[in-house]
């Protein structure tokens, strides 16, 4: 049989079909393939319902009713090697005790099936799962606490051999540079289409947002980012990259995280920042109490240090929402600028009106967090950093389902994953208690480290650690002196007393030395050092073997 190769099918669907309907269709070949994949699992399926699909990328997820209860089967739309990175992450975090559905092994004890040029996975359908109340602080705090837990569990992840590593950790510069460039594109497009409704509006605000991005980029360059990333990818763990009210849901025991397809190494607070700024955009105003609440909740689960808090602040201060909502303008400029853009800009401008006031207040919270220890670069583990083992990860182009040495596979699986069915319940229990134990151990270690850090920071209040921090107050002052005063004046005229109180300049502008990492060479030398260490480490572990 000539195997069906999964490709995007959006061209197959009538262009008049609505987006919602589009996501409710998959080609019959794909559905047939889903059944073939199912036949590799020890389960009988009585019902299969398409939950959603990605026609433009070639991905889909179904809910299936099986003799083991409800489950999901999912075809991951990314390249197999990339999907393997995510599958490895899922296995890893489950092993660390995260509330993420474990992958169900096939009859041959594979954790995934390759078919149609993509990887397929099956998990239990966690019930009940409930979406938290959006915007409501209590719900949001729970969501962000869950995010912190998830991030904590991703630390130390080493992807399986044969997977394509996905990392944005070292790419924050490029991300910001691209944002700045693209804001320039918006201006070019507005100039090129002067007759459209929103063109003058866009031109009237683009300079301001561009300047914000440039200013924040300068602050970013002076931040601790480069010291932080020198800690390496495994130290920071993974960001979900698409976390929100649908991918983090209330379930048994707390927040369950779903849809790990897009995870990548990153400073995980990128996820937190996205939730905060997109919610402010939804609310139409910046809400200090809400922001403080979710950051606190996150901090409870995955403690922030001062440097990380500062970077979160900088990331929030970029014109993220302006960029996110306007970037579409390049695709259909006339249509977009004549219909949606004007209202979008109105909303963004409105939301913007108290952004800087709130951020300047929030910056004072820096003192709540302990300085991080960045004296040592990459964390070198006492134990060999073991990549997640997934059994045989060999792919063949155009291959049928995998046939391979199952005994070898089982061995591999046993080491990282739950045992085959027969002894399932028992071994699962012991595995769980093991996980818990090691978790506890880690927790106590962590609190010990934190106590030590606290002691150190008290001992050396003015020591080098502190010196290398960028003074947020100074940063803020410069913002305040720029375009804020006019704005504040206007607002003060409206509600004088309250605003005045909130906008007092941060009082403590101590003179603190700044450490700049401006030059590329310095950055590169840090990267080089990290890689050198990695190599040395790899060599050492090889020798040991």
């Amino acid at each position, binding site marked *: 049989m000539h195997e069906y190769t999964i490709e995007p099918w959006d061209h197959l669907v009538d262009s008049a079909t609505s987006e919602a309907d589009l996501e409710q269709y998959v080609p019959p070949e794909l559905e047939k393939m889903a059944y073939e994949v199912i036949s590799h699992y020890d389960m009988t399926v009585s019902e299969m319902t398409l939950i959603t699909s990605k026609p433009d990328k070639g991905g889909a997820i179904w809910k299936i009713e099986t003799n083991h209860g409800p489950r999901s089967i999912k075809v991951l739309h990314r390249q197999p090697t990339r999907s393997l990175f995510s599958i490895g992450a899922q296995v890893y975090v489950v092993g660390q005790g995260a509330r993420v559905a474990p992958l169900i092994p096939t009859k041959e004890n594979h954790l995934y099936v390759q078919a149609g040029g993509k990887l397929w996975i099956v998990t239990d359908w966690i019930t009940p799962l409930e979406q938290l109340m959006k915007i409501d602080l209590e719900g949001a705090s729970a969501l962000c606490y869950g995010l912190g837990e998830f991030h904590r569990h991703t630390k130390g992840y080493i992807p399986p051999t044969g997977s394509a590593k996905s990392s944005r950790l070292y790419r924050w510069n490029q991300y910001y540079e691209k944002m700045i460039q693209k804001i320039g594109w918006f201006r070019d497009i507005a100039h*090129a289409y002067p007759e459209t409704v929103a063109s003058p509006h866009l031109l009237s605000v683009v300079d301001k947002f561009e300047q914000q991005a440039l200013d924040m980029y300068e602050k970013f360059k002076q931040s601790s980012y480069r010291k932080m990333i020198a800690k390496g990818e495994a130290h920071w763990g993974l960001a979900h990259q698409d976390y929100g009210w649908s991918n983090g849901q209330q379930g048994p025991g707390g927040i369950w995280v779903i849809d790990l397809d897009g995870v990548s190494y990153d400073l995980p607070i990128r996820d937190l920042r996205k939730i905060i700024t997109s919610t402010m955009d939804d609310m139409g105003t910046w809400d200090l109490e809400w922001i403080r609440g979710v950051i606190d909740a996150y901090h409870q689960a995955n403690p922030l240090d001062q440097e990380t808090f500062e970077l979160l602040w900088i990331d929030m201060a970029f014109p993220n929402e302006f960029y996110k909502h306007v970037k579409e303008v390049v695709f259909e400029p006339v249509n977009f600028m004549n219909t949606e853009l004007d209202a979008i800009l109105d909303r963004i401008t409105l939301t913007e009106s108290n952004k800087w006031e709130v951020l300047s207040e929030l910056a004072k919270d820096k003192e709540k967090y302990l300085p991080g220890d960045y004296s040592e670069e990459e964390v070198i583990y006492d134990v060999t950093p073991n990549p997640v083992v997934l059994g045989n990860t060999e792919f063949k182009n155009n291959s049928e389902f995998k046939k391979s040495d199952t005994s070898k596979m089982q061995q591999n699986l046993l080491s990282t994953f739950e045992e085959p069915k027969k002894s399932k319940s028992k071994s699962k229990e012991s595995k769980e208690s093991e996980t818990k134990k090691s978790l506890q151990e880690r927790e106590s270690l962590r609190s010990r480290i934190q106590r030590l850090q606290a002691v150190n920071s008290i001992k050396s209040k003015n020591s080098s650690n502190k010196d290398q921090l960028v003074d947020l107050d100074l940063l803020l002052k410069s913002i305040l002196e720029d375009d804020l005063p006019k704005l504040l004046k206007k607002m003060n005229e409206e509600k004088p007393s309250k605003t005045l109180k909130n906008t007092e300049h941060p009082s403590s502008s101590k003179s603190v030395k700044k450490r700049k990492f401006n030059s590329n060479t310095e950055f590169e030398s840090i990267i080089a050092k990290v890689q050198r260490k990695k190599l040395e480490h790899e060599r050492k572990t090889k020798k040991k073997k």
Partner: protein
Amino acid sequence: MNVLLICTEMLPVPNIRGGAIQTYICGVSHLLSEQHQITIISRTDPDLPDEEVVNGIRYVRIDSQRLLDIYKDGIVKYLSETEEKYDIIHIFNRPKLVLPVSEVAPNSRIILSMHNDMFKPEKISRAEGAAAVEKTDKIITISKYIGQTIVSYFPEAEPKIVPIYSGVDLSRFAPWMKSESALQARKAIRSKYDLGSKKIILFVGRLSRNKGPHVLVKAMSEVKSKDAVLVIVGAAWFSDDRVSDYIAYTRALADRSPIPVITTGFVQADEVHNWFCAADVFVCTSIWEEPLARVHYEAMAAGLPFITTARGGNPEIVQNDNGYLVQNPEDPSEYANYLNKMLSNLDYTREMGLRGRKMVEENFTWNHVANNILSVWEGIPSEN
């Protein structure tokens, strides 16, 4: 000698999927095989057998999944199992392959060809880079610029660096003023796209910000020649024609350009020369530090004068009044000034192009490249 060429993990040889390094290897391998026994390792491809011998060259294709680690393991396995004794192993653009290869083939001389900045710290650690330089006999670079970047990271590499410029197939790229077939190609594609006798400004390359064609599109607002047209030949990524935001942006600007802008989408490697025959001026708009783009040789071979940017190795090719150098590749006006100069005096412009053609005939054919590589293999000190 028995020589093994190792291509990168990205695309197969022959260059059925395109690729600058693959094109380069195809350009020289048949010439090299006249003197030596050649084996070429590249990645597997559904349309090519895993092993074959064609015209005396042995092709071995190793699975890579586009991942160097997987490819590396396959190469090490091949080398440890083969009965062949290679006098030379010539690795293309992957300094990270040097150590594993030299470990398993300690008696082979290792030559490295560098096509871009793979020695930079993000790509290879100081320790591994230094060890790779140490194990390598010579490092061929496709421009002096690439040689300089390597020396900037690894000063000890300097005596090993041999710049060898790339080459072009003179039988496919020819000036339409001098070649009947090129003239036919020029007429055919101009009639196909209804371009008549318009003055064609040509860009060929990937549509990405680094390559910079959007600046050229912006420059069209300042071009005075009413009968000019800008033709953009390329795609976002090899055979992938999906629209990126960059392409959309460039297209949105092009839609409002006073000078017509035509985008062709992806054009097969064996058809690109038609556009060089059809054009009047070629423009390379690199914003990034380009190693030295192949398209310059192709433009010159087709007798096209060009404008290029002062980035990377590009300035090395501007010689003997064959083209102009833009100092700030983000400034549309600089392009427009040169274009206005060139388009208003086409006779002189064409003479510039023919000077470029002469330069190619004398220096940049595949024969030149192959002879230079042979000198390195045979240990003859280069003229430079």
